């Protein structure tokens, strides 16, 4: 059978289908069982009883972006480390452990340099922002 090799990924697809079924089933069941009676009061966003002012889709603190930025670099580096880590033991047993260790450590040291830089420059602090608001306050 030609597709036997790929059978290992079949459960992944099945679980994705099950997730779709759970979601669709829950939504359809609640559509059937619940009674809908929307009023404009109900449909306003919850702000502790106040009338919402404006939209929530406004500009946000750039801190969030800097965190995402540092994350994505670390994410990519860890992706590259994974296959090397997976062969580490095997190569260590046949005596190439030192070579792999040197490559691995030089890779990680660059990673450490990155985190040290961000630490020193204060990118890892959450409250640092001397960011100037539009109103000019603080």
């Amino acid at each position, binding site marked *: 059978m030609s597709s036997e090799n790929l059978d290992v990924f079949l459960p992944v697809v099945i679980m994705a289908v099950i997730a779709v079924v759970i979601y669709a089933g829950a939504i359809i069941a609640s559509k059937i069982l619940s009674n809908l009676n929307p009023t404009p009061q109900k449909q306003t966003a919850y702000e502790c009883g106040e009338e919402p002012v404006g939209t929530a889709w406004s500009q946000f603190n750039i801190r969030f972006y800097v965190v995402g930025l540092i994350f*994505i670099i670390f994410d990519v580096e860890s*992706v*590259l480390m994974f296959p090397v880590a997976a062969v580490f033991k095997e190569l260590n047993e046949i005596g190439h452990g030192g070579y792999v260790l040197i490559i691995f450590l030089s890779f990680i040291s660059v990673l450490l340099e990155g985190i040290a830089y961000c630490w020193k420059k204060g990118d890892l602090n959450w409250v640092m922002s001397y960011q100037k608001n539009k109103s000019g306050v603080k």
Partner: protein
Amino acid sequence: MIPYIAYLGISAFLFIIGLAIMMSRKNIVAILLGIEFILNAAALNFVTYSKYSAHNLDGHIFALFIIVIAAAEAAVGLAIVIRYFQLKETVHIDEASELRN
């Protein structure tokens, strides 16, 4: 066995979609989004040829490094866009013409 031309067709389609997004959008973030489509099309081609023609894993390595470079590109590009927005309060590509004399 799936004909390899199917993968190449999907890859070409993705490339065209990415190009069309890059050409038709005026938001810089959307243009970067089009670039992601194009990079994915390239990576898909590499992996396809790796299976059908080369019979080794060099194509996979290329795809990996394309993903790595796409991540670096997205990080730097979006940082530039955000900085630009802070300075000019717009992300319209036509407004970004300071370098033109």
